[in-house]
Structures are given as C-alpha cells and as structure tokens.
C-alpha cells in the first residue's frame, strides 16, 4: 500500500513537475517582447529535453571518451596515457568478447526477426481464436527477466551422466525417445559454438516482440496488393518476398534496431549462465568486472568506447534507411 502511494505520488510529481516547468517557461516567453518571444519559445519547449539528454547521455559519453585516455583516474596522479588502448588491442579476453559481441549482433536480431516473421505469417493463417492463443504463448517470454530466462534455459540444457534422473528438458526428451546420452547435446561449457546456446535465450525472449510488431505490419498490408500480385501470376512465396516484405520493411528495420540495441547491452545472460567463462564473455560483462570488481575506470572506459564504435556502422545504416523512408513519403 505504501509503495502504491509513493508510486502515485512520484508519477504525479513527475508529470506535474514537467507541466509546471513548461507552464513557467511559456509564461516567461509570453512576457518577453514580441520579437524575443518568437525566438525564445522553441527553446523553451525543446530546452528541457535537450538538457536531460545532455546531462544523462552526452556528458557521460564525453567523459567516458576522456577517461579512456587517462590513468589513475580520481587520484592526484591522473594523467594522459595510451595504455588503455594498448590493453584493448592486445588483451585476448577482450578480443574474444568483441568477437562474441559481433556474433550476438549478427545472429540475435536476425534470428528473432526471422522467427518472429515466420510466426506472424503462419499465425495469420490460423482461425482468429487460435491465432490469439498462439501469439499469446509466443509473446509470454517477454514478461520474463533476463536473469529468470537464463535460469530457465540452464535447466533446458542441463545434463547428468546416464543413470541419474535427467531434469534438463532437452536431455530428458532425447533420453526418453532415444535412450541414454553419454554427453549433453548442447554444451555451454565447451566448444566455440556455446555462445549460440546463450543467444538462444535472447532470441526466445525477443521473438514475441518481433512477432507482435511484424504481425501488425503484415495485417496492414493492403489485401488488394496481395490479390493483384496473385492475378499477376505470383506464387505465395513470391508474394511474400516481393510484395509483403517490401511493404513492411520499415517495421523490420525498427524491430531489428530495437533488438540490436538490446543485444549491445547484453550482460545478464552470460553473467548468469557462464559468468563469462568458457569463451562466452561479452563486452558489457568485461566492463562490469573492470569497473566494479577491479575499479579500473580507464580500462573500463576504453571497453565502452570500443562498444560505441562497434555500433556506429549500424547506426549509420539505420539513419540512412530512415532518411530514405522519410524521403519516400
């Protein structure tokens, strides 16, 4: 009850505060001479948001960049150094994590979007009732935290030597059908492909999200254009690739970007499933260790800079796409 009250109060204060701020700024603008008012007003409205973005995003970003060239940060001996960058390019742990991050970036958004699209298309052909049920089930993982999902998937993959009772879902199913397994089908503690076992968790979590948005977009594609294509002699598969997909392209881009940004921040899944061991580590995890376990802010910053640089090409592509889309309107 207390929580509820403080929650409501917080919302009221937040919304009320914002309203009050804009009201005051507007009142201020209206008191100015006409000429000044015109000039000041736009800033009165975008100013607060700019300030928030500046304080909470831009400033830390610049500071991080700055820190990446510093050593012994926060002590009187703080000074310029390139050692952090040397560390970045030579440390094998970082190199492996960067490779892992790249794999995540390539495969997770693509996997979730492909699966989401598949489900959206197939569910669209079910009777309305079954469509709803199917989509609800696939959307449900969205409500589970990354930590929770990671734990669930640990159980999925779990394996015990033959003879003991198998509580891992995959192992249990295979054991039930084909008899005892001498080793697990999916190893999260060995091999180079074990990162994919971790990525599966994220794909599982995000497929529902992709499906919901893509399904809405598919339903928005005018039936007429599909029928026109059918009359033009297109097969169902040709219709999908040449008529439906191009018309939902902007949604595909949005969904991919959103998942991509989430993937860049991935941290909890490796943390819970492998603690970053067995070649599954990712940048955010390394950053966490450097910053909070070892307290080395210089090295931590350089890792973040690397992460930001990695996102730049994707951002560039996205902004370019977005501009093209806008131009088409």
């Amino acid at each position, binding site marked *: 009850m207390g929580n509820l009250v403080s929650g409501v109060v917080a919302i009221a204060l937040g919304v009320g505060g914002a309203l009050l701020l804009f009201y005051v700024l507007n009142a201020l603008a209206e008191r100015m001479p006409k000429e000044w008012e015109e000039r000041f007003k736009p800033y009165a409205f975008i100013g607060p948001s700019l300030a928030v973005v500046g304080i909470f995003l831009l400033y830390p970003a610049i500071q991080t960049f700055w820190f990446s060239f510093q050593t012994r940060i926060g002590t009187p001996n703080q000074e310029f150094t390139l050692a952090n960058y040397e560390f970045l390019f030579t440390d094998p742990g970082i190199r492996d994590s960067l490779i892992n991050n790249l794999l995540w970036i390539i495969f997770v958004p693509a996997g979730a979007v492909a699966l989401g699209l598949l489900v959206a298309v197939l569910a669209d052909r079910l009777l309305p009732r079954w469509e709803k049920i199917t989509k609800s089930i696939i959307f449900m993982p969205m409500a589970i935290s990354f930590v929770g999902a990671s734990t669930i998937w640990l159980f999925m993959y779990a394996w015990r030597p033959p003879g003991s009772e198998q509580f891992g879902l995959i192992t249990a199913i295979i054991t039930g059908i084909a008899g005892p397994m001498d080793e697990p089908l999916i190893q999260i503690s060995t091999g180079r492909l074990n990162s994919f076992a971790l990525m599966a968790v994220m794909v599982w979590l995000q497929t529902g999200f992709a499906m919901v948005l893509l399904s809405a977009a598919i339903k928005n594609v005018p039936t007429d254009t599909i029928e026109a294509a059918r*009359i*033009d*002699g297109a097969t169902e598969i040709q219709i999908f690739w040449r008529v439906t997909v191009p018309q939902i392209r902007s949604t595909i881009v949005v969904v991919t970007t959103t998942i991509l940004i989430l993937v860049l921040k991935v941290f909890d899944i490796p943390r819970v499933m492998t603690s970053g061991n067995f070649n599954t580590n990712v940048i955010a995890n390394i950053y966490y260790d450097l910053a909070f376990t070892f307290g080395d802010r210089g090295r931590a910053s350089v890792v973040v800079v690397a992460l930001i640089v990695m996102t730049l090409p994707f951002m560039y592509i996205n902004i370019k796409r977005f501009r093209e889309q806008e131009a088409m309107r």
Partner: protein
Amino acid sequence: MEGEHNMAKVVMDDIQKVYPDGTQAIFDLSLAIEDGEFVILVGPSGCGKSTALRMVAGLEEISGGKMYIGDKVVNDLSPKERDIAMVFQSYALYPHMSVADNMGFALKLAKVDKDEIDRRVKEASDILGLNEYLHRKPKALSGGQRQRVAMGRAIVRSPMAFLMDEPLSNLDAKLRVQMRAEIAALQNRLGVTTLYVTHDQVEAMTMGDRVAVLRAGRLQQADSPQTLYDRPDNLFVAGFIGSPSMNIAVGKLSKEEGKVYVELDRGEVKLEVPEAALDRYPKAAEMNGAEVALGIRPEHFGPPDSVPPGQVWRNRKVELVEMLGSEMLVHYHTASPPVVTEDMRAAIDDDEAFEALQEQARTGGQTFTSRFEPGKPPAVDSQIDVGVKTEYMHFFDAENGLALR
C-alpha cells in the same frame, strides 16, 4: 498488345456463391461475354457485383455452376492459370515499385526477357500518356495517374480478359467522365473481352456494349443500354436505369369502346393509352379494371399542345424547378400513390429516399419529375398543365413487378 489477340469468351453458367458464413451472394448467374465484348455489371451496392467479378478472376471460390474462360472450365484454376488482368477500385499498385516495375511485374514473373518487358511497358505508357512518370513511385502520382498505371498494368499483359471493379469510383466527377470515355476507347481499340463492374448506372449506360443488371445476387436483365432503357424487363430495372429516374405510380387500366385508358390520381384523371404503348406491352390491353404499376420517363412529358387533348394532365402544383441550362426539370405534385415494393426499395438504393416515398404513399400522393425544354420556369406553387406522351408509357404487374408483355 494490338494485333496479338486472344480469342476469349467468358461464360458464367448457373453460377452460385455462398460465403463461408452462409451468406448467399450470387444466385443462378448465367451470363456470356462474347469475345471482345465490353459488358458492364451494374447494380446497387452489396448486390454481389464484386463477388461475381472475383469469381471470374479466381480470387473467390465458386460454390456452384461452371465458369468458362476461352473454352476451358476454370472453376478450379488459380488466378495465374486463368490469364486475366484485373483493375481494382483502390488500384492496388505496389507502393514500393516504380510505375514501370508495377506495369512490368506480371511479365517479370512470367520470365519474359528484359527487353521485351521494356518494350511492352513503353508501348502501354505511350498509349496511356505515362512516359514521364515511369520512374516515379505510386505515392508521387495523382489519382488519375494512378488509375492509368492500374490500367497499364492490365494492358501490358495482353490477357484473355480484363476485369475491372469500380475503377473510376475514387476519381472526382470531372476526371471520371474523362476516364470513362478513355477506357471505352481503349477497350474498343484493344478488343479485349472486358467485364466492368460499377454501381453507377450512368457509367454503365455510357460505356458498355451490353449492360447486365444485378439485384441482390440475381441477374435481372442483360441487354444493350438502349434496350434496357426502352424495354426494361421489370420494375427494378425500370427504376434503377435512367437519371432522373422513371416516374412510377399505381394506376388503373380500363377499356372503353375498344380504347384503353389509364386512370391516375385515384380515378380523377383518365389518359388515353395509344396503340404504340400497347404494342410494347400487349398484356396491358387485357387487364381491364386492374391496378398496375405504370412508369413514365421524365422526358416523355411536354407542353399541353404537344399531345392530343386526351393526354393532358391538368392543374399540377409545381413544387420545385431545376434549371440545368440544356434542360429544365419541373417537380410537381400528383395524387397518384407510389409503388412501395421491395423492387422499388432496391431500385432507389437509398433507405431514406425510400422512407420518404413510403410516407408519400401514406398521404396518398407523390412528386413527379418532368424534363422540359429550357424556357421561362413556372413559379413554385403555381399550377401547370402537362402533356403526357402516353405512347412511351411502361406497364408492370403491381405485384411481381414484371413487365406486362
């Protein structure tokens, strides 16, 4: 395109359509569209025109009967196998493709080679005046241009038949009139069998070789526009075709000394029916004393001195005069009750207008509309004498609405 001409008859033989929810949209539809013929399917909205057209296209399953295109039964063929082109009401252009790609899409799917596609797209765009727009996306075109692209997409394929579902209804009135003429000319030039759907009877009358009138899923009459106008088979067709529509009232037929008369205004007025009308409606001559639905088109009235004295309807009270430049429409009161059957409701296709008619039926009169040469308009509320060219009258059974032939 021109020259490469497929022999294609489209034949519907006793076609039925029942939708999965049980709605029967088409009943026993039999209609043959000859090779190269331009047939218009017209009827009030919801009467099943689109359903019929979509069954020809293969977009809608056929519940019963046989559909032929060319000499083949196509009931179970996909749209692709039927080799028809369709123009949609919304145009259904592919928004992500340029005009040229929109037009060439079908050919590309059919693996026609690139040069040939370009040649045919160019040829179509020449005909339609789209050359400047070939690289634009549909979004950057006006409504009229989009309509042309939709036409272009159909003609580049030189299909067995064109199917068009209200292709002009999204255009403004002026452009619609222009495109009406263009499409008719284009169809004539290409000579491709065409089935064209519209709810606009003016469009139907001006465009087609033949007009098929559909009402509530049943074919009423399929004839040339003039025949439909002059010899409607039933009350629905009579009321639906023509603008302003035919005046229809309950009247009583009587026979005296070998002459047939029709009583209007509940017997107060008695007009002579000449042989010419009875030749067209022979049964009317034998219905002495019977109440019938009689119809007379607005243009079949004239000044009192233009008809024999026995055909003048006197002292009509003027309610409204519309001056249209080339003609003058005069609306005046009569005491003749309107016909308020389901036929009429369907023909009027406007529930409010029909309720107004029912109201008039209760009060025992209705408004007639006459078309006169433009001249000095009579004053509203004044009384005029109207000459009735009874030789052009139409007679229908008051109960079942069938023409009395």
